[in-house]
């Protein structure tokens, strides 16, 4: 189930809100039980049999957390959680990729099993692992109540697409949190804006990107290729940040405060800055649990380079089992190294708009690698982007005319306009009403767009 579905909006969410708030606030354990039960139900709706995989992951991390909390068994807890947790992830996500790559690279004929990927496994594996590692480091105390760990891992707002929440962020709120009308209203507004980002902008950009990326690259001209690449750049941002907004908003409705996951990445003035603003919870996870343990920058230059490339290789492959993701990770690793050792000073001297353009174009090129089905197709696509041709395709004109408002809204929405509006809101309390109206309008349009996506006409008369 996804947040942008009628079943979630008109079935799951009202049912959960009704049951949750029917339980008195002082019965915290009961409210947590309701939240956990609904979270498991939320996951089971899409992947019934994989609930057991998630429950196994929860049990593993709970047990390993207890082990990691004791001096004598600390290492055992960490090793067990890492090997079993990552082993589970590798089995479900990378087995097919590893075997088919081995077949391709070494001419083998190993059978490649068809393994269905449990949705959200990358997220809940990383969340569980971070808990055990934090316990081992002494950052958080081991949790003796398994239901608390279960709720932390399975909490539905962040279960499927993040943000990757650290246990320390919500540990206190699991035990003691305060739901209020103000928190609920803030959560609702955030949820509505996130839903709008997904339904009104990301889906429109997806239509453009799918049309262009679906073309035979032999027919791809520079103009179409750029339109498709920029559309995908906006799609992935508004889709993912919209989902994060919805997750953060839903969390607030129930009294949880998740950390921000995006901070207007497309206004970055360097690739380095881009990665401080993009999918913050993942970047900080790799920083804290891979980069720093490897020595970070407190090592020699050669080892430092290896550390950075290792982190970016893992970041790439975390996103998907394909060579394109791996190369996408390495692409950013190389760019970050270049900025760190050579380009950084030059970029700092560039006028702000030029620096932003530099970072944006490099992000666009990166997303082509990310979106393409294979490396050869990515190469052909990138070649088309830089192969000059006379004139502009009719299809390009159509896409720009048809989606002109969405493109414009994406450009505006990529700048921190909302932050600015939030400041104005504090100047005059009457602006709160406007904010509500805006959220209500976005919600209404999102629902209309959501329902329209189910419009399924049959040309021929055949009931």
């Amino acid at each position, binding site marked *: 189930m996804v947040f942008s579905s009628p079943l979630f909006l008109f079935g799951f969410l009202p049912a959960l809100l009704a049951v949750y708030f029917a339980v008195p606030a002082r019965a915290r354990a009961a409210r947590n039980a309701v939240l956990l039960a609904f979270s498991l139900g939320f996951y089971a709706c899409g992947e019934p049999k994989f609930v057991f995989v998630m429950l196994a992951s929860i049990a593993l991390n709970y047990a390993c957390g207890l082990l990691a909390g004791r001096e004598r068994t600390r290492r055992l807890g960490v090793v067990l959680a890492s090997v079993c947790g990552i082993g589970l992830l590798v089995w479900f996500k990378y087995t097919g990729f590893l075997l088919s790559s081995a077949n391709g690279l070494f001419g083998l004929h190993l059978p490649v099993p068809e393994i269905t990927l449990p949705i959200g496994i990358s997220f809940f594996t990383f969340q569980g692992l971070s808990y055990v590692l934090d316990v081992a480091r002494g950052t958080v105390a081991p949790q003796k109540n398994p239901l608390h760990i279960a709720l932390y891992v399975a909490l539905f707002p962040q279960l499927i697409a993040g943000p990757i929440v650290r246990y320390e962020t919500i540990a206190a709120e699991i035990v003691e949190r305060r739901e209020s*009308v103000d928190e609920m209203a803030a959560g609702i507004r955030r949820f509505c804006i996130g839903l709008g980002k997904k339904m009104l902008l990301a889906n429109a950009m997806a239509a453009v990107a799918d049309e262009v990326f679906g073309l035979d690259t032999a027919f791809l001209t520079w103009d179409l290729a750029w339109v498709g690449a920029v559309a995908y750049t906006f799609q992935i941002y508004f889709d993912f940040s919209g989902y994060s907004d919805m997750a953060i908003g839903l969390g607030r409705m129930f009294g949880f405060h998740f950390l921000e996951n995006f901070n207007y990445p497309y206004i970055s003035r360097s690739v380095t800055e881009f990665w401080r603003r993009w999918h913050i919870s993942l970047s900080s996870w790799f920083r804290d649990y891979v980069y720093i343990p490897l020595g970070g920058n407190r090592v020699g230059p050669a080892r430092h380079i290896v550390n950075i490339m290792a982190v970016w290789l893992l970041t790439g492959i975390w996103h998907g089992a394909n060579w394109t993701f791996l190369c996408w990770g390495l692409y950013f690793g190389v760019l970050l190294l270049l900025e760190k050792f050579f380009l950084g000073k030059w970029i700092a001297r560039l006028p702000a708009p030029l620096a932003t353009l530099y970072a944006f174009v490099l992000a666009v090129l990166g997303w082509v690698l990310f979106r393409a089905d294979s490396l050869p197709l990515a190469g052909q696509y990138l070649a088309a982007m830089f192969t000059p041709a006379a004139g502009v395709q009719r299809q390009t004109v159509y896409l720009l005319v048809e989606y002109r408002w969405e493109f414009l809204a994406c450009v505006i929405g990529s700048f921190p306009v909302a932050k600015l509006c939030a400041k104005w809101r504090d100047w005059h309390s009457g602006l709160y009403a406007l904010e509500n109206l805006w959220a209500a309008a976005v919600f209404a349009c999102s629902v209309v767009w959501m329902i329209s996506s189910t419009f399924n006409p049959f040309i021929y008369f055949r009931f």
Partner: protein
Amino acid sequence: MKKICNLLAVVLFAAALIIPPALSVLLPREQVSLYENRTLATFPQLTARSLMSGTFVAGVEDYLTDHLVGRNQMLEAYVRLNRDVLGKPVVNDVYESDAGTLLAKLNYDHYDAEAVAWRMEQQLGELTALDELVSSYGGKFIFCGVSEQRRDRYDQYPDYLQPGTDTIDNAERLLFEGFRENGITSINMYEVFSAHGGQDAYYSKLDHHYTFAGARLTYETIMDTINLGRDEPLAVLRENDLVFHEAEGAFYGSYSRKIFNLQRVQETLLWAEPAEPIPFTRTDNGKEVEPAVFTPKEGYASYGSYMNGDIGETVIDTGRDDLPSVLIFGDSFTNPVEGLLYYSFDEMRALDLRYYDDMTLFEYIEEYQPDYVIALRDRMQYNQAVGNGVYR
């Protein structure tokens, strides 16, 4: 103020989440979507298997979406917002031209001369074999090609929505050249319509099919072609031999449905019956049904009323053994033609191979050996080896 706003936000949001599903449960549910031309989802059966496979939840989602109160209003609002507020040229894949014609958005054509030539050679080979099969028992095969609204009104698209017509035009050229070379009787209705006042007079503005006038001219042309080879001509229903009716209710075309009939132009749907009717029996997919060739819809008019829509196999028997038999096959363009064609024959069989799978067309013809076999295909389908383009 802030407190009041927040309270209001919570109350409104709760109302927005609770009221629609509650009303959806309480109010009576529709079974059919007029605009989508389909039956709405039914509540799925709960079994252990359907639950574990996820199909139950998916079914509940479909059901909830299909029956959500205000769904039609929301779908209409979507069209209005996109057309009138955002000014989108294409909404739900439909473009409304300056002349008021609704046109489907076409795929951008990447013409591949070799691929088209190869495909048409295959199609021509199949049609030639079909002609030989019909001739082998003394029958007569006629290929009738009708144009299609999207191609006829191509000039009404703005420049950026004109994807090129090379594939369709060359497919047509190669097909009719091949018919001439192989001696297959063929009719190109595009030329006939052009000679009789142009395409505009014969094509709907709201639907991808021709109007009843277009269907009638197609029928007359087919009958005239048949009669050219006969010593004793078969009866042909001309204008004076028919009683015309206007179907009740607003006309919902295949394109106007998609934009909730919000277009500028409205049309009516005509049909006709012989002034001197003849008795007949009708069988659809082996089951005897009411002997009618036009089935009015309640409250609206639809192309689907002709012959009651697309049906795998229809047999109309007029019980006049002295007359020849006919088989007509093709997509829904055949439907209004069938409603006239039966009049001239002892038995009319009509096949829509998209929905008929008891036999291949070759097997069917070998079994029934109709005196006349008519392929009625539209221009957009000439190069398509699917549905009514697959014969054996």
